[in-house]
């Protein structure tokens, strides 16, 4: 059936009319959507009716005249969700359509503490997200205060800790950011998002022992994260634990990214250098740089090559 979108005027306030079917759509990361959630009523042999949910996700659509109708909710960045009309909850306050954030579980991840956070903290958090969307320095400062309030109201709110850390990092308050990132992980050690920024902080300050322990925790939550293997091995090397560094190298080589992970050449070079094979190490650094590597490790590789060349 070709669908002609007929926008239905929503009547969310006040009591529901008998001619309406009402429901609620929510997102699984607890972050208020930046745009209204689009809802559509699909019925066999009838025009598709389109509407939009209010900022809290509530929607109302005309009561279908036929069986077999479905409601679909759509929001960019999230996987669309469909629910049969007869499976909508009787009370629209009970979420009926659940949208899931797109993306792989190894990338940006959600904290399972978010949706169960205390209501007052959720309000502060939502306000913080909305304020942040306003843009500008003043709103960043205001949002930071709101996230700080959210974690004060609920110290188990890992996502709020993480957002607070991001804002603290944005104004280069590394010590406070580290506290917030560590608090996020203390609240939910299986929330993967804080690991990478916290690891970069620890490495940047050459806190090798902390970095290695963090990599171990990260790998415990998400085995096979190649960056965690790499930085864990490099931290071990800095701590003169050559055996652990070689173990990390072996794990990367055996892993799914082994063949394509360019930084493995850098790590191999560092190990070879430590073992007293400067020529072989140099070849590995060059191999790494020839793959177009950029960033701190590439700079370090160039510096090591230059140093070897000057000797």
């Amino acid at each position, binding site marked *: 059936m070709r669908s002609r979108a007929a926008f239905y005027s929503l009547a969310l306030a006040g009591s529901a009319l008998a001619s309406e079917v009402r429901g609620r759509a*929510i997102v699984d990361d607890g972050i208020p959507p930046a745009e209204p959630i689009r809802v559509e009523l699909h019925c066999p042999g009838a025009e598709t009716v389109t509407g939009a949910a209010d900022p809290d996700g509530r929607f109302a659509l005309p009561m279908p005249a036929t069986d077999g109708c479905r409601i679909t909710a759509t929001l960019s960045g999230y996987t669309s969700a469909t629910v049969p009309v007869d499976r909508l909850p009787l009370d629209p306050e009970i979420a009926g359509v659940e949208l899931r954030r797109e993306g792989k579980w190894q990338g940006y991840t959600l904290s399972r503490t978010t949706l169960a956070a205390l209501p007052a903290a959720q309000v502060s958090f939502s306000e913080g997200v909305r304020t942040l969307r306003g843009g500008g320095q003043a709103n960043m400062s205001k949002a930071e205060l709101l996230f700080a309030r959210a974690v004060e109201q609920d110290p188990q709110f890992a996502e709020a800790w993480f957002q607070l850390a991001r804002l603290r990092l944005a104004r280069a308050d590394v010590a406070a950011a580290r506290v917030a990132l560590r608090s996020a992980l203390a609240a939910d050690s299986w929330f993967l998002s804080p690991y990478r920024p916290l690891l970069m902080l620890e490495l940047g300050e050459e806190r090798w022992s902390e970095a290695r322990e963090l990599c171990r925790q990260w790998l415990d939550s998400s085995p096979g994260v190649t960056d965690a293997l790499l930085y864990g091995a490099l931290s071990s090397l800095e701590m003169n634990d050559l055996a652990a560094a070689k173990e990390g190298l072996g794990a990367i080589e055996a892993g799914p990214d082994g063949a394509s992970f360019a930084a493995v050449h850098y790590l191999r070079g560092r190990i070879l250098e430590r073992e007293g094979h400067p020529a072989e190490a140099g070849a590995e650094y060059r191999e790494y740089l020839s793959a177009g590597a950029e960033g701190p490790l590439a700079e370090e590789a160039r510096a090591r090559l230059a140093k070897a060349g000057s000797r």
Partner: protein
Amino acid sequence: MKPTILAVLIPVFAARLPAQLVAIDPGALPLSDTSRMELSGFLRGQQWLEAETALYRSVRENPASAELRKALAAAHFRNERYLAAATEYGRAARMAPLDPGSRFTLAAAYIALERRHWARRELESLAAEYPRNPLYPHWLAGIYQHYQWFDRAIVESRKAIEINPDFSSAHDRLGQCLEALGRTAEALAAYAKAEQVGRAAGERSAWPSYHRGSLLRQGGKFEEAVAALERAAALEPRNAEVQHELGLTLDRLNRPDEALAALRVAVEAEPGEAKFHYALSRLQRRTGDIDGARASLARFQRLAGGEAGR
């Protein structure tokens, strides 16, 4: 009025989840007599939407009750609102530690939400705390299998089997993981064991026989494969995957009429699955039913959408 004591076991047939049991006991909930009777009536009549609404109302009136929140979570789970279920279990857990059954249901909700990462946390912890329960390593194995960590999945499946040697699904999962690693002989033995213990327990799952038949077909042992797939079809005659596999195997044995019959059952059982129409179309064309083949191909192309032309 004496409160009605009713323990209701709710069978849950969530997509890709094995049957689970979620218990709601109105007698154990802090409800008024009227509310308890009302809830008991809903549960007795299997009016899950009404039960969910009644529990939601009760939670709003008594938000500090972890027991009510757990019951609401179970009702959400039964109504396939897995995110709401997980959220409510999370709220209950903040008030009091969850019992193992609730934690297991929470893990099942996470799996239904495709948040296996979170489910793994619950299941690993349950498996460590209750090492004699075979369900926990079995479900953990399912998560590891999904991640294609087959070695780990094999270890967990073997733990489940060690605890309960008659656990058919655990043998079946072990077979799938061994198969994935190319250990065909061991996989076939595991499937055979799964069939054997499942049959002895009177289970009606077609999957062990299906997996065995499918693997035998891949190895060119078509006669043996048909025998296994016919056992699977006898257990679940409307299982479209089984009928599809049976049709393909019968076709290899040059038994086109039986193959067509099996593929037609597959298409009828799951008309929305494109691959069944495609298999039927190919066989119809080869057996001279050109019109039928065209119609099946058209259905395949419509269902497969953009992928059909690739």
